[in-house]
């Protein structure tokens, strides 16, 4: 080996601790980058392939009922490639072993398997047969959650009649990759599932022979102006369906499952960019400070090498190799762990997004990209340090470095300084001597604090969102939905049910709201003035009342439509006699989940020209009677759906515990690595710069503990300073995330719980202390005698 090579390995060994810290940060960054990018690519590619192979529709519409012959007319619309008509109904299910009633979405499929739009993938069992009208396919997650398998039976109330259905197969569909019930945010796979049933038997049960109530389309490929064409098709379809109770056509972006998946994809994409970027920045900084210090310490050696005839370039290259070795040693484990973590994340995704096959795509681009980005970053850090090498002349290097110039700073001259003990002044002056390094250290640790805070914030925000929704807005224990609107007197029967202590009826009507070129289909809810079980809140979380006249919209819906209080809207009722009215927006409400439109129950009845029909009821239930109530509800033919608060909260909690907590734990750990790396390196460098000084102090009779304070004091001060700085950054980063999560489905408010502050502080202090202790061990081995022999 060439001598310069030997020097490299010896110095690498000498600096192993510091370079390992930098390598760890690199590893975390690479890990995050590879994991998230791979997960993104896998999810995205699988989605596209699945949509393509199983012919996921481009346009969707529900309607009340139309004759099958209309399908031909729809198919003739310009731009439409294929049409599939279906019968889709929601029904109450009675699952063996489940006390509560479940909801099922029954989707019709042809009796004979043919390739079709929104095709299904048969995982197990067989396709349905015309000879077995009660045979159904059920969705895989629903089957898993309820431990149902081929051959098992389940009860269903179909149009008021209880039927025994037999599971003949387990299936998946691109339409239900994210399988949530109507109006739900998080999946509850025990209590909501999709069932596919033969068109004939389903139509027969619901008197829909020769008719359909759902249509989905694909568009002709290669149309060069896709967006415009889609708008045309939607408008055309709406025109055709309006006579048949059309509920408004929409495209993929409003399709529930696709929307969740797309939102999730957009979100991983953001985190896949900014999290690795933070790590890379910190790693580059660490490499820079370690190498700069090394260059300063090795001035003499550098001068000698140059005097021997090594060129500046070859010496600079020598230092560049340090950073390459560091990055490479972080890169390889980072890549492997990243892929492993990517696999775990993909598995986690599989619990929420259901594909026939979701496999981690190991993409060479992702791996090369991570390698390239990190190597480039490392070179940048090293180049900055290597520039100093070039500046050193052989002669200069022979002289000892000029004694460090200290000066009393501004702070020192202030009157406070008089009271400071001398050791505190040492700390302050050492900080003041390298303000940039101090600043960057504060920023580096701060960013980690911020990262931890963002992580916690997400949990706190979801928590807050759920609290607001379920304590202030949705306060009922059970919501029941009727198949058809019923007379107001139906509420009396409901009040008689066991355990029901309060029952509030409500009316929900499908409407389309239009303002200028914007429109939105939504269920308009009529609320009674004395409604307690469903309340409306403003931005200060105060409970407000629905105004007697006009519409009340959730703020998000107002944004979507571009309206605010006082504006007028066109309201098209998509049911019954399909009135079209101008209505004023009388107020905005601030719910965090979903979007909604409210009207006073009386005003709505007047608008619809009906006398107080009700679509469902919200109940307060005595928990002791819950079981009895549930078994009764399973048998009430008029009920098409039952939503149960406790079950909903339970499934949400499970999801948060499983997915969110794990992810946030990993992110906390990553952030702690940054803190540890920063502190360790900082203290190590201080020790190398001030080792002689500290040894002299030991000679003078200072104890281990006292010199530890002098060494760590500087770092402790920076860490403490970094905490508020990090909180400000964390606040900023969280605030930046809020618009990303400002969605129709839910919005996270900029709200922090106490844990958003305490967890990052504790984690930072623990990480800082642990890494400081690693260095502190070295103080025990300070050579008190050697220091007396050497000149600074």
């Amino acid at each position, binding site marked *: 080996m060439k001598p310069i090579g030997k020097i490299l390995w010896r110095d690498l060994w000498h600096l192993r601790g510091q370079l390992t810290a930098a390598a760890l940060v690199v590893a975390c960054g690479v890990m995050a980058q590879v994991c998230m990018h791979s997960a993104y690519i896998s999810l995205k590619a699988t989605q596209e392939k699945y949509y393509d192979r199983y012919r996921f529709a481009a346009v969707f519409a529900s309607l009340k009922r139309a004759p099958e012959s209309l399908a031909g007319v729809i198919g003739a619309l310009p731009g439409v490639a294929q049409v599939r008509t279906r019968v889709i109904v929601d029904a109450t299910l009675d699952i063996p072993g489940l006390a509560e009633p479940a909801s099922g979405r029954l989707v019709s499929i042809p009796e004979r398997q043919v390739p079709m739009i929104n095709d299904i993938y048969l995982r197990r069992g067989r396709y349905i047969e015309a000879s077995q009208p009660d045979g159904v396919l059920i969705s895989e997650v629903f089957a898993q959650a309820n431990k149902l398998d081929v051959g098992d039976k389940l009860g269903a109330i179909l149009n008021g009649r209880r039927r025994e259905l037999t599971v003949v197969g387990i299936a998946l569909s691109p339409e239900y990759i994210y399988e949530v019930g109507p109006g739900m945010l998080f999946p509850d796979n025990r209590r909501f599932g999709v069932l596919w049933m033969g068109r004939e038997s389903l139509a027969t049960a619901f008197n829909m022979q020769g008719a359909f109530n759902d249509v989905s389309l694909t568009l002709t490929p290669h149309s060069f102006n896709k967006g415009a064409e889609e708008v045309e098709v939607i408008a055309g379809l709406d025109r055709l369906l309006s006579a048949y109770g059309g509920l408004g056509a929409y495209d993929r972006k409003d399709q529930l499952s696709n929307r969740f998946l797309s939102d999730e994809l957009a979100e991983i994409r953001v985190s896949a960019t900014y999290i690795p970027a933070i790590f890379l920045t910190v790693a580059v900084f660490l490499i820079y400070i370690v190498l700069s210090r090394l260059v300063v310490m090795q001035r003499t050696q550098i001068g000698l090498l140059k005097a021997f005839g090594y060129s500046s370039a070859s010496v600079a290259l020598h230092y560049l190799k340090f950073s390459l070795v560091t990055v490479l040693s972080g890169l390889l484990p980072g890549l492997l762990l990243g892929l492993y973590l990517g696999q775990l994340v993909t598995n986690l995704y599989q619990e929420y997004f259901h594909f026939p096959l979701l496999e981690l795509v190991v993409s060479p681009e992702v791996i090369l990209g991570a390698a390239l980005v990190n190597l480039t970053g490392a070179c940048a850090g090293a180049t900055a340090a290597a520039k100093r090498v070039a500046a050193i002349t052989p002669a200069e290097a022979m002289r000892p470095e000029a004694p460090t110039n200290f000066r009393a700073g501004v702070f020192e001259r202030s009157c406070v300084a008089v009271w400071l003990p001398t050791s505190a002044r040492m700390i302050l*002056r050492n900080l003041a001597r390298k303000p940039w390094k101090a600043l960057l250290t504060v920023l580096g640790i701060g960013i980690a604090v911020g990262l931890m805070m963002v992580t916690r914030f997400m949990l706190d925000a979801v928590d807050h969102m759920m609290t607001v929704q379920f304590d202030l807005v949705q306060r009922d224990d059970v919501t029941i939905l009727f198949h058809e609107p019923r007379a107001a007197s139906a509420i009396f029967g409901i009040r008689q049910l066991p355990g029901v202590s309060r029952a509030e009826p409500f009316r929900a009507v499908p409407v389309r709201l239009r303002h200028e070129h914007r429109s939105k289909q939504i269920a308009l809810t009529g609320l009674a003035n004395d409604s307690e079980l469903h309340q409306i809140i403003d931005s200060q979380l105060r409970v407000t009342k629905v105004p007697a006249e006009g519409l009340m919209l959730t703020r998000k819906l107002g944004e979507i439509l571009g309206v605010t209080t006082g504006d007028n809207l066109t309201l098209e009722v998509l049911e019954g006699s399909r009135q079209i009215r101008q209505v004023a927006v009388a107020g905005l409400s601030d719910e965090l989940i979903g979007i909604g439109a409210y009207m006073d129950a009386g005003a709505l009845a007047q608008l619809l020209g009906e006398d107080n029909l009700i679509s469902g009821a919200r109940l307060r239930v005595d928990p002791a009677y819950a079981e009895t109530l549930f078994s009764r509800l399973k048998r009430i033919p008029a009920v098409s759906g039952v939503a149960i608060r406790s079950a909903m909260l339970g499934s949400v909690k499970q999801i948060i515990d499983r997915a969110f907590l794990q992810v946030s734990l990993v992110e906390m750990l990553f952030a702690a690595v940054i803190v540890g790396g920063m502190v360790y390196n900082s203290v190590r460098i201080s020790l190398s710069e001030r080792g002689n000084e500290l040894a002299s*102090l030991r*000679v003078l009779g200072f104890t*281990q503990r006292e010199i530890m304070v002098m060494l760590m004091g500087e770092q402790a001060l920076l860490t403490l300073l970094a905490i508020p700085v990090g909180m400000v950054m964390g606040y900023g980063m969280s605030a930046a995330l809020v618009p990303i999560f400002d969605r129709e489905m839910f919005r996270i408010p900029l709200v922090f719980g106490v844990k958003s502050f305490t967890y990052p502080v504790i984690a930072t202090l623990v990480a800082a202390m642990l890494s400081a202790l690693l260095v502190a061990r070295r103080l025990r081995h300070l050579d008190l*005698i050697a220091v*007396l022999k050497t000149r600074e």
Partner: protein
Amino acid sequence: MLHPSGGIEAHPTTAESTGSVFHVHKVSKVYRVGEVEVHALREVTLDLYQGEFAVLLGASGSGKSTLLNILGGLDRPTSGEVLYRDHELTRADDAQLTLFRREHVGFVFQFYNLIPSLTALENVALVTEIAAHPLDPTEALKLVGLGHRRDHFPSQMSGGEQQRVAIARAVAKRPDVLLCDEPTGALDYATGKLVLEVLQLVNRELGTITAVITHNAAIAGMADRVIRISSGAIVEVHRNEVKLQPSEFSW
């Protein structure tokens, strides 16, 4: 003024009116580097007495610094026993040695070892803050003739000035013993003399036991006793009948 070096095994058994403060008994120090054993000290026995000024002379590598470091509680002998009054330094643990240095010992080194981030005054104050009965730091600086440089940082002072600050720092806590390892080694002639005068002044005014290592035999004239070391053993102890002032000798 040169002292002829004799090959006599010297034991300073002279009865003094003042008592022995340091008692070094058969102290040996062996360094093991790989297969090689280096005997830095071989069964050295020596006493240091209240208020005396001792000079240690010897060739490079003869073991002077090793002995001084053991006396100052910086190092431990391989065998033998060191007593400081009633403290048995050879039995003390690290914390006790630290306390010993803190309470009783002042050090002055060849390379000053000042704290670069502290002014002259603060360098002194650093030590007086942890001492029981210190001098006022300003007084200590005045003692070495640097009262007017109190707010200067080490990088703003010459080597000799830094060394005088180091002496002020060492004496400011009123140590019982002042140990100086080649205090003039890095200084020019005139400055060296200045520093020696300060050491003598401190010894006289505060009655501090002072042990000074030097390569410079001329300096021996200012000592009460001159201890000559060769190859790890004391080869001669010479008592000066007349102590000279630094101004009275030259090299």
